[in-house]
């Protein structure tokens, strides 16, 4: 059954169509990639799914429930976690405190500590646990973002360009991490790096100029002439 369903979602900024009539179905347990050239409306779309902004038209249904107008913090409590495209951690606080802040709204008090430790271990950040988050390397800050998503044990994890700015080695670790999660958690992956998309996604949705161009397996998408044209700017 579909965990997330987006129906006819539209949003315009000052008359400019950012997202237009997008319909999308994400099945429980699936790793779905969302790709598209710059300005295709990916971030606007996931912003509406996560509750950072509200659509002009259309509906968002999560786990059978209409959440179109629900504020972001309530969506988190329903089991949706979102990691920011531009690293958005609590730079002045310790790494553990960052993860604990993510855990507290969802877990009983006694479970916070072990859950934080487990999430840090999963993201490979145990050694950095006591550091100030702002002092972490960029790659580690990205991993901290993911650890903050993991600790919430979400049903839907939205990763907004998670590999942006990561080194090859870090990307390999990230892939392993997502493969490890696949099956337990539904993942919506917004990604520029095609290797990552091809390696991880079960299905890929391509956005172009705010509309869905196609949805298919990575191989189908790669072979599609329309997708190639959208990316390369050819007719």
């Amino acid at each position, binding site marked *: 059954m579909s965990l997330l369903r987006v129906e006819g979602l539209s949003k315009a900024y000052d008359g400019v169509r950012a997202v237009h009539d997008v319909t999308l179905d994400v099945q429980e347990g699936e790793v779905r990639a969302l790709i598209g050239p710059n300005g295709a409306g990916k971030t606007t779309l996931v912003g509406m799914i*996560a509750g*950072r902004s509200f659509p002009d038209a259309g509906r968002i249904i999560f786990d059978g429930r209409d959440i179109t107008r629900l*504020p*972001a*913090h309530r969506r*988190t409590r329903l089991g949706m976690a979102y990691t*920011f495209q531009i690293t*958005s951690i609590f730079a002045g606080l310790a790494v553990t405190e960052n993860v*604990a802040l993510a855990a507290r709204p969802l877990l009983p*008090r006694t479970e916070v500590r072990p859950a934080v430790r487990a999430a840090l271990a999963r993201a490979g950040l145990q050694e950095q646990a006591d550091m100030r988050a702002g002092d972490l390397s960029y790659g580690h800050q990205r991993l901290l973002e993911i650890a903050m998503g993991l600790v919430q044990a979400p049903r839907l994890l939205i990763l907004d360009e998670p590999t942006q700015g990561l080194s090859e080695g870090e990307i390999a670790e990230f892939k392993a991490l997502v493969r490890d999660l696949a099956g337990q958690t539904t993942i919506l992956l917004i990604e520029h790096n095609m290797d990552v998309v091809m390696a991880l996604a079960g299905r890929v949705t391509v956005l172009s100029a705010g509309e869905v161009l196609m949805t298919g397996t990575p191989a189908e998408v790669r072979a599609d002439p329309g997708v190639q044209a959208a990316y390369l700017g050819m007719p």
Partner: protein
Amino acid sequence: MSERARVLALHGGLLVLLLALHFVLPPYHHGNLARIMVLASYAAGYNIVFGYTGLLSLGHALFFAAGMYAMGLSVPHIGTGTALLAGVAAGGIGAILLGLLALRTRGVAFMIVTLMFAQAGYLTILYFGAWTRGDEGFVIARASRMLWGLDLSDAAHRYLAALALFALVLGACLWMVRAPFGRSLIAIRENEPRAAMLGYDTFRLKLAAMAASGAISGAAGAAYALLFGYAGASFASVEYSILPLLWVLLGGAGTVLGPFIGTLFMFYLIDLSSGVTSAYMLIAGIALVLLTLFAPRGLMGTVRARLWRWLP
């Protein structure tokens, strides 16, 4: 020593020191310190909103005065203990009402909205001069200043009552900033959109911070009237909204000890410089500029950055 033990030793140590000073200070400084402890309690209340939650309010005189007048006007009718509680409630409820409106704005707009409501409160006190006696204020009768057998017009009792208030506020702040509630306020200060995306209802948390801050400010206002026997409109003026901001900035925003250190420092800076020159505010101003230049995190904030990372 564990972090917890260090924190308890430092803050408990300050309270023990203040108690010891009660027995050794000459009357002049003894009286000053009693006043400083009450004002520092007010600053500590302000610090919850400004230092921990990151909301710059310019309207806290409203809550200080609400506590002061709720206590001062009700004490002849309902007794000292209840009047004191009325002061706390007035500060807290006032802060919730203002918060419901002002928290819809942020940044500069929040500053202006809080400032305007506090000014409206000040003018209201003047308008109802028949009851409040306006600028002139009113004296609280000695008979009303008895609490649990303590005569608060007596210097020794007054000092101990001020210390009790300060200890209570310090303890409450210390508990709060280490509890999940305080941590979520810090999360809002550091990165509010992120906190919301993690599942925090940031509006409700900010409102709760306002309520706690207003209640403590109201308690300080009520205690001030009770201990020093006077309530007047000047305590509702904009000056009394700016002062806690200065004290907290000087002492270190977002530190539990900062408000006390800042209040102490500023009080004696003005006290000492006014003995030297009539342009004492100039000296205070220069000291403020220097501190902002060389210790922008305030005194305790600098101590935390350089020396004691564990300082709450």
